[in-house]
């Protein structure tokens, strides 16, 4: 894999004259998992969309990009809360969507290999409608991995899953996205405590860095440091509100 760049963003952003975030200065270290934690409506998703380059409605007064100076376009993969699977395509074809959309020859063997890594090899010929919520997010993860981009943007991808499925998805994503620059937007303090190698807390007033636990991620959900970090983060969220 190509070396993953770090990301940086600074400045303010408005949508139709209304401030959505900033002024702020934000760094996402290269090859690490960064959680951007905050309550709803503070502009977390807007920051993510700005990095993804799908922020047409956002007027950014500042800079946004990779710290190696090269443009981010073509180096980013996106995974959202909704799985965004095409219901008329099989799981395999959904995994191959990016190649198809770029007019490239789809690599079916690679897609099958990735589907088996996310545990969907038995479901590759099914349509998404036949899958459970957790399986659908696995398929979305497979599609994201197929893109093989050094930067992965996650917009609350696990928040609609039940607790056990969510924990399993967190472990799986942590394993499979290792080495990439991950920016993970979430409003779940427990999730940030489990996964964040760097934790950024965005509130209406400011962006602050909160020290993550010392242990490597993914951390046990019931680990002492994880619970302590979750508590600290929850307190921060309460104080900011």
């Amino acid at each position, binding site marked *: 894999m190509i070396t993953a760049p770090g990301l940086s963003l600074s400045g303010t952003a408005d949508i139709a004259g209304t401030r959505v975030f900033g002024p702020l200065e934000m760094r996402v270290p290269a090859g690490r998992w960064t959680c951007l934690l905050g309550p709803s409506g503070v502009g977390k998703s807007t920051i993510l969309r700005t990095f993804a*380059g*799908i922020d047409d409605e956002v007027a950014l007064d500042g800079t946004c990009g990779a710290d190696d100076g090269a443009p981010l376009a073509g180096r980013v*993969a*996106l995974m959202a809360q909704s799985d965004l699977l*095409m219901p008329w395509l099989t799981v395999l074809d959904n995994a191959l969507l990016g190649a198809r*959309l770029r007019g490239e020859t789809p690599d079916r063997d690679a897609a099958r290999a990735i589907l088996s890594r996310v545990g969907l090899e038995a479901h590759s010929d099914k*349509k*998404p409608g036949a899958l459970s919520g957790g399986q659908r997010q696995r398929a979305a993860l497979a599609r994201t991995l197929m893109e093989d981009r050094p930067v992965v943007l996650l917009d609350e991808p696990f928040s609609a899953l039940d607790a056990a499925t969510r924990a399993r998805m967190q472990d799986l994503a942590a394993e499979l996205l290792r080495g990439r620059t991950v920016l993970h937007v979430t409003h779940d303090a427990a999730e940030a405590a489990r996964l964040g190698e760097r934790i950024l807390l965005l509130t209406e007033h400011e962006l602050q860095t909160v020290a993550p636990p010392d242990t490597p991620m993914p951390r046990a959900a019931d680990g002492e440091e994880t619970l302590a970090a979750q508590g600290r983060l929850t307190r921060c969220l309460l104080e900011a509100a």
Partner: protein
Amino acid sequence: MRAVHLAGPALLVIALWQAVVVALDMPPFILPGPARVAQALWTSRVLIAENAVVTIIEVLAGLVLGAVLGAGSAIGLAASERARRLLRPILVFSQAVPVFALAPILTLWFGYGLASKIAMALLIIYFPVTSAFFDALMRTPSGWLDLARVMGAGRRQVMWRVRVPAALPGFVSGLKLAAVYAPIGAIIGEWVGASKGLGYLMLLANGRAKIDLMFAALLVLAVFTLLLHAGVDRATEALLRRRTR
């Protein structure tokens, strides 16, 4: 099956029909009874069949051409903002012209044969198909469009691989409407000027006071329209269901 469920209502209608004829003492040249119409249907079966074939061809040709043209227009409009700005007002304005009023002009231009009726059927279904499909094409969930953009998709690929498949249910609802409208267009065309077809046969029978034949032709037309609608309905529903299974 459904045919069995329909037997009851059909019998009820026939009974009511007969009751009206008997109770009001209707002369057969105003309202013939079901038995007379059935008799006309049988004795004139060859005549009716010959004319029905013509109408069916007109309707099916108009339906196919209208669906293809409507789908093409919807995709063209959805793909190009310039086309939308230029053509949409024209399309909307064109709806202010009653299609029926165009029938004499179409007959003048395309003659008394099949072409003017096909054109009529096509015109009457073009707008419903176009607008239903176009509206669906413009409502592609934004998450999919964002995803495609991040993936580096070309506009053409997004259209064919995301927007069109996502909009198929809209196209199908336009098509279902079209299946009901197309026979209307063909019949109007035949009324204005034709030498064949069920609409022509109805006028002819009316002129010769063969009201039972007129009703027989009407019955055949109604049954054909029902079958066409049910056929389109079944085929498209199966298609949509298979699509996501």
